[in-house]
């Protein structure tokens, strides 16, 4: 059995390490995801674990096993975020999983599968009732920010439906980043196991890039220049406008696709704007961090 150790702190910064360990296509034998030592997990980590398990299952043609975290807090949180509902049919789990409690007051958006436009409507409907209070009380954003927040979610989820051609998941949560930033943040994680940005744009745009065509240039084309596979000039606005809104809120956005990651980060984040040479991975991963206004709740 091949054992994949899940990082003890599973978030946007460590999820690459997990994804890089997923064995290649045609791997024989069982795979075990050892999450016993996970003490902290955020939406990027949770969605990353769902994706890693799904890819491992598809590549090895058998259900990987998941050893659950020993931390009761982490287990309880995974339950509240609907993690166990999301991994039914993805992982074999021998231990008892916690029931999903009714108390969801601190959850902004549980892990939600996105495959069709109706899923996007459900995501927008669901955050309406919760986002307003969290954005204003925790982040100090104006009351109308719930609309911009919903628009961001709508556009990132539509990216899966319109371009990925494969299943995806989204989750969001508010945290107090006391040590890292000294403020509250909202983290949005969106991942899919579709064809990625390079695959989506290749037919329409790869020729003009010639030898330079890669995961990185495909990300630059979409992220910086708004290129899309559709000839319609009204297309390609989604990511551009998400970037603009995230910048207005002094937030960070990164997108990993294939072997590259591109980002737009503010001064409080030291993530490099472009990373290449990551392990090949299907689909795309979008991470958005929205910080509280300075002088807001700490």
């Amino acid at each position, binding site marked *: 059995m091949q054992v994949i150790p899940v990082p003890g702190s599973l978030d946007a910064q460590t999820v690459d390490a997990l994804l890089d360990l997923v064995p290649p296509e045609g791997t024989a034998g069982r795979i075990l995801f050892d999450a016993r030592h996970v003490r902290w997990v955020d939406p990027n980590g949770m969605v990353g674990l769902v994706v890693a398990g799904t890819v491992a299952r598809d590549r090895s043609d058998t259900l990987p096993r998941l050893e659950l975290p020993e931390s009761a807090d982490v287990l309880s949180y995974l339950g509240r975020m609907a993690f166990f509902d999301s991994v039914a049919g993805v992982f074999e789990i021998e231990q008892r999983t916690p029931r999903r409690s009714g108390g969801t007051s601190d959850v902004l958006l549980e892990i939600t599968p996105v495959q069709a*436009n109706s899923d*996007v*409507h459900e995501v*927008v*409907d669901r955050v*309406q009732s919760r986002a307003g209070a969290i954005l204003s009380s925790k982040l100090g954003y104006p009351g*109308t920010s719930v*609309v*911009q927040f*919903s*628009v961001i979610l*709508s*556009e990132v989820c*539509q990216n899966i*439906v*319109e371009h990925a051609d494969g299943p995806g998941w989204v989750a969001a949560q508010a945290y107090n980043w006391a040590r890292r930033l000294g403020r509250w943040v909202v983290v949005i994680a969106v991942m899919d196991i579709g064809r990625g940005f390079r695959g989506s744009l290749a037919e329409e745009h790869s020729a003009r890039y010639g030898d330079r065509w890669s995961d990185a240039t495909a990300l630059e084309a979409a992220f910086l220049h708004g290129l899309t596979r559709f000839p319609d*000039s*009204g*297309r390609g*606005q*989604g990511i551009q*406008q998400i970037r603009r809104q995230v910048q207005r809120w002094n937030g960070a956005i990164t997108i990993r696709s294939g072997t590259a990651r591109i980002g737009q980060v503010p001064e409080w984040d030291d993530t490099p704007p472009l990373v290449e040479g990551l392990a090949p991975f299907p689909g795309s991963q979008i991470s958005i961090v929205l910080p509280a206004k300075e002088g807001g709740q700490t």
Partner: protein
Amino acid sequence: MTDLPLDPIAIDVGDLLQRTVASLYSHLVTRPTGRAVRMAIETQLAEAGGRSLSLIDLSEVTILDFSCADEVVAKLLQKHQGDAGLEAIFVFRGVHEPHRDQIQVVLERQSLAVVAETGPGRFELLGARSPDEDLAWRYLEDQGFLGRDEAHALCGASDPVRAFEALSERGLAFRSPVTGRYHALSRLVEHLT
């Protein structure tokens, strides 16, 4: 003969969203939803027949994303501003602050503009327009209407006559085919509730 061969109609997008797309959907998000709403608007326009002035009411819409703004606003305008001239003129009502950015962005991207009621009785020009067009539109909005011979009186514009013609061609003002008089769209729809 009347100076205004138009019978303005009001179209409630919130109502259309509920009736034509799916009763479960309460927000104007996703491209297929926007496309379905636009097609429902076009069906109503076709039933009205001929040249029309329509008040598209977004007051009941809470969330409007960029995809829907492109389908419901930009593509609707594009389709009715073809080479054959304007078939339909639109005014958008209920363009509150949370919708404004999405509409502004999709219009500018396609070099379009629209007259929008952004608050009770407050009309604005949103989207791409020249300084002369902006000046002419504000002047017409103040005056309510303007005789074709009075267009040259607009101060500050490099070519005032052309500016009013452009407003008419772009569906941002109505020029009577009978008298040549220019009418502010806000005045033509003010009686519609």
